[in-house]
């Protein structure tokens, strides 16, 4: 029983982690709490749905394409909305508010086009096979979800850690001005990060859409508070923290439903978030940040 729950928790948690990764990446590098991340997540799911139903593509072809679409959307948001605010050095809350506007715009536009009702992938899109290992039942879909999200996350961490590009991204995260003086193309890094974060968010949207087989305009809005909880747990801007935080939230949710009561599922996550903030504001693994006077 507990092993089965762990499998479910791992699946859910790895998608949360993928979602939170983009969220935290944008915060770490652009210093923006990007509340349009949920809308991009949802747009990714709809893109995959359209590619499957209208273009008759297989889901594993549609997934990377949907990630490209949501990445492009993220880039567009950065260029049209966030760039002017950066140029003017707006108060740090302004980009956050602007992304609320973006989320409202995208969510309602999608609702206007596709309607508020839940859409589903056509029968046969989602792999239905499952394996029985002892008492545990694992579906092919669950395996695919865990593998895909782990690969994406490992790839990102490897790039950040070992390549010149990753070094540049980390330098910009540390200090954009100094990076600029050192000859790093800071604007290009911002663009790249916006694209990557949105692509990861869109990918998470497709995977969540597949695992619940339901896609609706407000699916991303529901995930925003959870994403916030995860990146606070892991420490704002901390890539590895977001991954651990995502898994942790998945486990906490599945276990609280299984062993406590489904009623207080969200309260467990957010109660925890509240406590963490009071005890360790920099997150479970975060460095203690210097307070700017």
């Amino acid at each position, binding site marked *: 029983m507990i092993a089965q729950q762990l499998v479910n928790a791992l699946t859910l948690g790895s998608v949360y982690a993928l979602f939170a990764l983009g969220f935290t990446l944008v915060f770490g590098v652009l210093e923006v709490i990007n509340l349009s991340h949920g809308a991009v997540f949802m747009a990714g799911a709809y893109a995959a749905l359209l590619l499957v139903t209208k273009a008759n593509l297989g889901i594993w072809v549609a997934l990377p394409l949907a990630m490209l679409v949501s990445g492009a959307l993220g880039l567009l948001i950065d260029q049209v909305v966030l760039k002017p605010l950066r140029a*003017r050095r707006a108060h*740090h809350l302004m980009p956050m508010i*602007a992304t609320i506007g973006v989320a409202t715009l*995208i969510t*309602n536009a999608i609702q206007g086009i596709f309607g508020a009702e839940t859409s589903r992938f056509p029968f046969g899109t989602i792999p239905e096979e499952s394996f029985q290992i002892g008492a545990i039942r694992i579906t092919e879909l669950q395996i695919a979800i865990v593998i895909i999200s782990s690969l994406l996350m490992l790839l990102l961490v490897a790039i950040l850690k070992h390549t010149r590009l990753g070094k540049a991204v980390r330098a910009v995260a540390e200090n954009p001005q100094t990076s600029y003086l050192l000859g790093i193309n800071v604007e290009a890094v911002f663009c790249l990060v916006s694209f990557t974060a949105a692509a990861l968010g869109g990918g998470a949207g497709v995977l969540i859409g597949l695992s619940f087989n339901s896609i609706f305009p407000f699916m991303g809005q529901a995930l925003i*508070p959870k994403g916030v909880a995860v990146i606070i747990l892991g420490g704002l801007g901390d890539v590895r923290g977001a991954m651990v935080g995502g898994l942790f939230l998945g486990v906490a949710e599945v276990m609280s439903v299984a062993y406590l009561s489904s009623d207080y599922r969200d*309260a467990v996550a957010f109660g925890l978030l*509240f406590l963490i*903030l009071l005890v360790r504001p920099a997150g479970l693994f975060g460095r203690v940040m210097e307070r700017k006077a």
Partner: protein
Amino acid sequence: MTETLQVFWATYNTLVFTVGVHAMLALSIFLTLSCGLLSLGNAAFMGIGAYTAALATLRLGLPFGEALALGGLLPGLVALVIGIPTLRLSGVYLAMATLGFGEVVRVIFLNLEITGGSMGLNGIPMKTQLWHILAILAVLVYGFVRIRRSKIGRSFEAIKEDETAAKAMGINTTAYKLLAFVMGAIIAGVAGGLNAHFTFFVSPREYGFDPAVDILTGAIFGGTGSFVGPMIGSAILAILPELLRFLQAFRLAVNGLILILVVIYLPNGIWDRKLFARLRKKGAA
């Protein structure tokens, strides 16, 4: 003439009430913002106030005034208790902590028996009159005008500009921040109580993340330079969906678009005195 007025009132009285309640919420978030605190807990405090006032009416049969007072008192007490540890946080962290608090409150409403679970409370009698809302708004506006140049108002401003410097000047920053937080919660709670007594019901859905964001959005849209801006901003955002009915499903998308445009092109909100002064100069020249 009077007939047109009557028809107008019959159609739009809920909207007028809503605009008034939103103006109150805008004032409540302005109060915390004017002290440099970004709190996203106002929707939760509004919820606590709405449930408290509604239960006072339904279960205890208290008169409206007392129900409203309780609806302000309880959120104030809760703000006092959670404010003491929470207000040590600043900036984004405070925003996220209050967001977490809001979600916990919502889940509690959803699961307690006395709050009616996911169905909420229904059949709350209509007790809110227009003059109640106007009178409370008038008192609040008078209070805000008086506070601005008082010791409290100047302390808030000093903390907002630079907390460390304010502390060095001998301002008890913790006490003033707590004061702003608690007063903001009381105003939000009363607004919630008023709201419950003209919409006839309260449900957990109304006090979650989205309303918290809406309150903030209205305030920023109007401009947080003075208390007038948030009131105007939230009023416009409350009326806009009605004006844009012809766009049907897309009308809320327009809300988002307007918000983006304002943040990019009118950084100080739409109620921006400096902008007005510049425009006037241009007009004169």
